[in-house]
């Protein structure tokens, strides 16, 4: 079966690393702390704090060593392809995660709520339950919904523009146009931050003035779960974009060696597309 050996260069296999196992230690403390905290046990808080510290150390150390290896020229096209495929499949798993939450939204909205409304009024979850969407309940807790044409529409424009600016930055990178790369990234980070600020403002408005909370029946639950999870992803995206911006300023990327940049821009486009779905199915329709 085997006839000779390949002349290809050796695949870079990193040396043993302390970071993954330290990260696991941190996650052990975080999970235990959160498990205690949600049950109102005071020690949980301290464990969460104790877990967060090694987490920060690991993030800096692990990404630091990757950046150092990249600068040392240890990654070639072969390794690069692994990173690309890895990032791609990670995003696929994220797509499934969001698809599940959208599935939950459609299930509750078009199946379980109408089924409940079809029951004998005696079994109705609250008096006057009619099975419409928004669910306008549970009992005694009326709420208003957020109009799609205020902040949500503005946020759509912001995120779509940020998708354009990150692509513009990519063009700059491909033509070795450093200034365009950096200004494109700065604009993208700014648009992301403004988006997050407006989203926070909207949540505040919903809680304090509209009476729309996590407890507002399945409408509130699906609304905050989907938009909150998306907001969390935008936050991660902004952090990653900032790191990429810093690396661009340091001159880490060139036209044919910039996986880090591309991975983050793929992620950012993914977050963008999720928002479009949110705008259509959560806010608008």
């Amino acid at each position, binding site marked *: *079966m085997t006839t000779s050996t390949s002349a290809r260069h*050796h695949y870079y296999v990193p040396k043993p690393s302390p970071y993954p196992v330290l990260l696991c230690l941190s996650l052990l403390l975080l999970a235990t702390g959160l498990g205690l905290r*949600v049950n109102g046990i005071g020690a949980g808080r301290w464990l969460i704090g104790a877990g967060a510290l090694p987490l920060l150390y690991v993030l800096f150390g692990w990404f630091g060593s990757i950046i150092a290896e990249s600068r040392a020229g240890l990654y070639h096209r072969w390794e690069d392809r692994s990173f690309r*495929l*890895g990032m791609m499949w990670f995003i696929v798993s994220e797509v499934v*995660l969001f698809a599940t939450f959208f599935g939950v939204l459609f299930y509750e909205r078009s199946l379980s709520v109408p089924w409940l409304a079809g029951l004998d009024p005696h079994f109705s979850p609250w008096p006057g339950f009619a099975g419409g969407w928004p*669910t306008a309940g549970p009992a005694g807790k009326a709420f208003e919904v957020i109009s799609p044409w205020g902040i949500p529409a503005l946020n759509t424009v912001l995120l779509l523009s940020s998708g354009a600016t990150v692509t513009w930055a990519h063009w700059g990178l491909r033509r070795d146009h450093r200034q365009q790369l950096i200004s494109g990234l700065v604009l993208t980070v700014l648009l992301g931050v403004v988006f997050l600020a407006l989203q926070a403002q909207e949540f505040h408005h919903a809680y304090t003035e509209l009476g729309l909370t996590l407890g507002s*029946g399945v409408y509130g*639950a699906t609304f905050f779960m989907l938009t909150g999870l998306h907001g969390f992803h935008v936050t991660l995206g902004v952090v990653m974009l900032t790191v990429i911006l810093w690396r661009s300023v340091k001159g880490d990327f060139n036209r044919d060696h910039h996986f880090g940049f591309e991975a983050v821009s793929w992620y950012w486009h993914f977050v963008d597309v999720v928002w479009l779905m949110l705008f259509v199915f959560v806010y608008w329709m």
Partner: protein
Amino acid sequence: MRHAAIEYTHDEHQPRGLARWLFTTNHKDIGILYMLFGLTFFVVGGLFAELIRAQLFQPGQHILAPEAYNQVITLHGLVMVFAALMPVTAGFANYLIPMMIGASDMALPRLNNWGFWLLPVAAVVLVLPFFLKMLGIGNGPIDTGWTIYAPLSVQSGLGVDFAIFAVFLLGASSLLASINIIVTVKNMRAPGMTMMKMPLFVWSWLMTSLLLIAVFPALIAGAAMLLTDRHFGTHFFSAAGGGDPVLWQHLFWFFGHPEVYILLFPTAGIMSQILPTFARKPIYGYRAQVYSYWAIAALSVVVWAHHMFTSGMPVGGQLYFMYSTMAISVPLAVLFFCWLGTIWRGAMTFETPMLFALGYITLFGIGGLTGLVLADAVADQQYHNSYFLVAHFHYALFGGPIMGVIAAAYYWLPKITGHMYNERAGKWHFWLTMIGFNTTFMAQFFLGAAGMPRRIPDYALQFTDLNMVSSAGAFVLGAAQLLLLYNVIVAWRGHGRPASDRVWEAAQGLEFTLPSPPPYHSFTDQPVIS
């Protein structure tokens, strides 16, 4: 034919002792960690099973309080699926795939390490409530059954929260391992190792990884919603806010049914490595098996609600899930046919791996056929909550995957350790396992048909005799597994005779061109496959 590995006798950069295992980026080290972890929890989960059978040995036993019984059956299920079977199959994947495709290592070695070490963390988090209870916090580990059904899981104690966090960690671990395997298979194959030349074990793990990525996020999402329902006032699974407890079942089984194939696929691949070796014939129907994998994987994500016939469902839904479930038996039958075709008129010998492989075909066959009974929406009403289902499930998952990984253990143990196991002990292990297993679970088919409900710590007098038979079988089955531990130690400590490179007379595959045990870095220079 010559092998192209450079033998590294030692490597200066390598930390020694505990640090080696904690920090390792080597696929063989990580594979061994996975396997040892899985073996440890196979023992733990097995002890839980023996506790259950001791409690059910006769009616009115008080070995376990009812609350503790619920916790033990829940942990038995979760531990066996997530901490025993999945890690062992992932261990074989890590150890073997780079060797089988002629790679130097997995494509993403640090993530590989992270994926493994998440598992012990998840296991600790899962059982921590047991120790918290000793400190007077909470009422012990999760007690809802491994399916964690709402609304019980919304109301139950803090054990559920810790199980939810364990699910998050396990999910991260599985997704990391899956991504790594897909990338390795796509990017690390030696020149000339085309997709359709890959050993079927590699194919089977590629399908497993794709399935994990397609379904595990759904369980993570479900667990997240369970957490918010429990502590943050949402109503995803509560009709009081317009939600639906059955939604949990949909999410769980959208993950849970493919999970059966996630456990099964790697061992189906293992069959197609072992059977040709001991039948001394090439694989029969390689292409048909690959296409069957695809068909099974595709069908497995659209049939989940056959677990929910008794939860209430429109007739149209029942018909759809019944027929689509039954359709899976077609590609599965193709696999069986190919396995039988492979050994048909072969020059067979019956070393321990072959015995377990044949046991797999037999027992998993029974598991599959009794599954057709349960897939029938009408018959299921009768059998669903009875011991018939328990028996079917164990024929499918012990008879399939566990027999498969034991076969794999005997098959590759000499390769991994460089020494043979004790063949006589291996044969005893096989026959005692077959006798113990069939005694335990055949009795449960009859118990289920007679109407004994599952998941209760006590039962009516009329079920006594068969329960005693079942428990006696379980004790034999449990004791027989000590022979597996014995054989692992025999090979590990080098008590058996040295294994040759090829180990088995007719073994095929790149891993058998390397010495036994293989060098630390398998193929630093990639072989070219012609």
